[in-house]
């Protein structure tokens, strides 16, 4: 029971619009890796340094750059022949390269077409690599899902294959899984755990709802992806049993004691319920900002999208009790709105939201912090 798109639901996001996009086209949020850099400075990767030499990764990126499927496949299978495990190749080569692809798109070095072609090559490589896995013992059944609203499936696909290679039966429900579909699936199949991928912290409220739903169905959740914060620090706040940065972490967490009892039932309560009224006023805030900021007609939908995401990030920050989430989001957004007036536009948006939300003390505080951060370069 995967998503009913007949094609393999592993397409990377195709529409990463660049400068040539038609006026008014919704600009899709980039796949995260370039943003909350999971391997950025100061980060200690829980499972140690990559097991694939940096030179090989560079060569692989070269293949992606040329959309050279044959060369990329040869590199990957060469590693397997030299004794690397499927997990090594997927985690330390394909996933690492995919992060770099995201960065190159974000920094404008690659066009959307290049990014898409590169992702397509990596998908094919994944197909070839997983053909090398032998069926192993059935250690249990795991369901893998991307948080509702997230469409980047290659990273999740890699997790699926690595966990499968470690002996688990994995069902991938696909990108953007609606909560009801997930719950219905859990009741039908009773898996041992759910692996939930969340790339953008602004989707943490939704991720939290999905975790609550899984807990309510008696299934513990292992969280993955940078959306759960640096070192996954917000994962347990929303009720997940653990958090992993890579597919290998997922295997490690699944192999540990995952007794359902402590991680099911009622989720830990949020520090503040203020995020509920804030989310309820989301559309109202979007319209208010559009009236106050009056962007040119072609940019109206883009600005509306920015505001909606910002309100999501604010709600998420309140939900997990960490204003830094909003601050980081605003800094990133300022970088994405590269048209020069991005910071000013964001400041206007923050100001209007702060005025509208004065009766909510946490919102006012978080928005104030975000404005201050925006005014001071990091």
């Amino acid at each position, binding site marked *: *029971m995967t998503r*009913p*798109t*007949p*094609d*393999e*639901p592993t*397409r990377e*996001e*195709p*529409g990463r*619009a660049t400068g040539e*996009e*038609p006026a*008014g*086209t*919704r600009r*899709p949020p980039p796949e995260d890796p370039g943003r909350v850099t999971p391997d950025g400075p100061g980060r200690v990767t829980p499972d140690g340094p990559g097991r694939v030499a940096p030179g090989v990764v560079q060569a692989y990126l070269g293949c992606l750059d040329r959309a050279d499927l044959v060369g990329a496949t040869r590199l990957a299978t060469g590693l397997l022949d030299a004794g690397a495990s499927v997990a090594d190749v997927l985690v330390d080569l394909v996933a690492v390269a995919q992060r770099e692809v995201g960065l190159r798109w974000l920094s404008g070095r690659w066009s959307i*077409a290049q990014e*898409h072609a590169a992702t*397509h090559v990596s998908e094919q490589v994944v197909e070839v690599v997983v053909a090398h896995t032998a069926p192993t013992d059935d250690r249990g059944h795991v369901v893998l899902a991307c948080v509702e*609203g997230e*469409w980047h499936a290659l990273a999740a696909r890699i997790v699926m294959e690595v966990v499968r290679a470690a002996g688990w039966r994995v069902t991938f429900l696909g*990108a*953007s899984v*609606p*909560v*009801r*579909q997930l*719950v*219905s699936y*859990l*009741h*039908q*199949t*009773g898996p041992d755990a759910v692996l939930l991928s969340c790339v953008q912290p602004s989707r943490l409220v939704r991720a939290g709802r999905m975790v609550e739903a899984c*807990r*309510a*169905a*008696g*299934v513990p959740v292992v969280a993955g992806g940078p959306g759960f914060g640096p070192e996954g620090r917000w994962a347990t706040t929303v009720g997940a049993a653990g958090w992993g940065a890579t597919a290998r972490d997922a295997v490690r967490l699944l192999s*540990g*004691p*995952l*007794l*359902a*009892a402590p991680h*099911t*039932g009622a989720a830990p309560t949020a520090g503040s319920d203020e995020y509920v009224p804030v989310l309820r006023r989301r*559309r109202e805030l*979007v*319209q208010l900002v*559009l009236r106050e900021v009056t962007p040119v007609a072609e940019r109206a*939908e883009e600005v*509306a*999208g920015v505001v*909606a995401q910002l309100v999501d990030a604010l709600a998420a920050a309140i939900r997990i009790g960490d204003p830094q989430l909003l601050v980081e989001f605003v800094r990133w957004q300022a970088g994405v709105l590269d048209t020069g007036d991005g910071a000013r536009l964001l400041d206007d948006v923050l100001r209007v939201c702060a005025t509208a939300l004065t009766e909510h003390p946490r919102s006012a505080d978080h928005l104030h912090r975000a404005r201050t951060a925006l005014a001071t370069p990091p």
Partner: protein
Amino acid sequence: MSHASARPPADQSLPADPQLARELLDGLAEAVVTTDPAGRVTLVNAMAGRLLPELAPGVDLAAHPVPALARAVTEGTGTFDAEHHGRRLRGVCRPLAAGGCAWYVRDVTDEQARTDALLAERSRTAFLARAGSRLGLSLHREQTLRATVTLPVPYLADVALVVHRSPQPGEDLPHWLRYADGEPGPVGGVASRQLAGAVPGLVEALDGESTDPSPWLDAELADLTAVLPETFGRPGTVLISPMLSAGGPAGALILVRRAGRAGFDPRDIELTREFAARAGSAVAAADLYGEQAHLARVLQHSLLPPQLPPVPGVTLAGGYRSAGDSLRIGGDFYEVFPTATGALFALGDVCGKGVGAAVLTGRVRQSLQTLRLVEQRPHELVQLLNRALFDSPDAARRSQFTTLLLGTTEPGSDGGVRVRIAGGGHPSPLVVRADGSIVEVRVGGMPIGAFATATFAEVEVRLAPGELLLAYTDGVTEARGGSAAVEMFGEHRLRQALASVAGLPPSAVIDWLLQLVDEWLDGESHDDIAMLAVCAADPA
């Protein structure tokens, strides 16, 4: 005016009458013992004589007649709480003005028993509440069984074991699932035929006989060790309870305590029986849900969009979102059949949504599946389909109709693909040309299955290599969302979105469109959505 200043000092109002003082002391429900500064007992009242008979005037309190009291005196704690002659005593010491001190000792045996009983009752209630909420979480049999064996450990037993029969027909050996204190999770397996016979009461419990659960010692339980952890050793006491449910026995719950742990008292047995009954009901509910879900899944599977076959000369992709999230079936559909020269494809929208629409969808798809064997020209096939649907029983009464696009692909002379499309009242497909422009292909025609005399139309369109034709249902363009949640997604946005992904493969185009519509909806409810993209393959 305060009472304190009005009242005379307390000592002035006391009569200097030793007899009265003695009578008052002896009338107290509390034991009173006084000592001189050296710690020797100077006075014991009547209650002290009863509770602490060892004490008499002249006895050294720090010596050993009452150990707990002696310890309190030696260590200077000023209080004690201990069993003495079968009574629970609690004492407190107050210094006397003349030196020495007075011990006031209360008999709290009954109070303590009530508190203990209350705490025990509270922990039982808490256990049942926890059990109720955990058993209520899942509707899945295995999950429920896992909860059943983890919950009683360690509160009620050191090992909990469920022996149950699989609901799969044809499996007659019982299965077991166990959780032992300290193990990372439940483990299970198939039980030997001997197991049931070897454990007294298990056969009865599995047959649902409401035998009174009763604990007994392990003399005959040799075969139980096969399902206990290797290091567990000899079980202490064992308690077997049937997991009764309305539909018959769901299994048997076996609780095992280690040797050395106290046996099951009557309240434990009562509690276990209650728990086993709740677990039985939960398993029965899960079984019932499992049957229904299986039925739904089988039907759903036949109604879900199909896997698209490979078709020479074209690449295809379909996208589908149903209005309801949990069953994922509805009134929109697409279908692709390979033909001798290319493909026959269809995309349609049955009026209505949900299961009712899905059933009619199934009928339309089934009819197509059959009719295409005798007719593959789009216009003629649509006419046939119209007659077939119109002739079907109740069609008129239900006044259900379908809008449809039905097309064929065949290789074009110029290396591209020739597409012929017949239509029945469906939104016009869009073509993404090689130069990035978006062109509407007007098809027309009337909805099918509604009128016997309906007329249909057919058009032909050529796709150069890399050009893409998108057929979609009105669920796409009529998706209401945006900042005000009432604006339709509209053909304008659809065209813009298509232009922004011109040149990408169909699966990427479909995913991008689904994502855009999803974001546009932003959680608002929507009608069924279906899309089918047909792209003339690049000769390279």
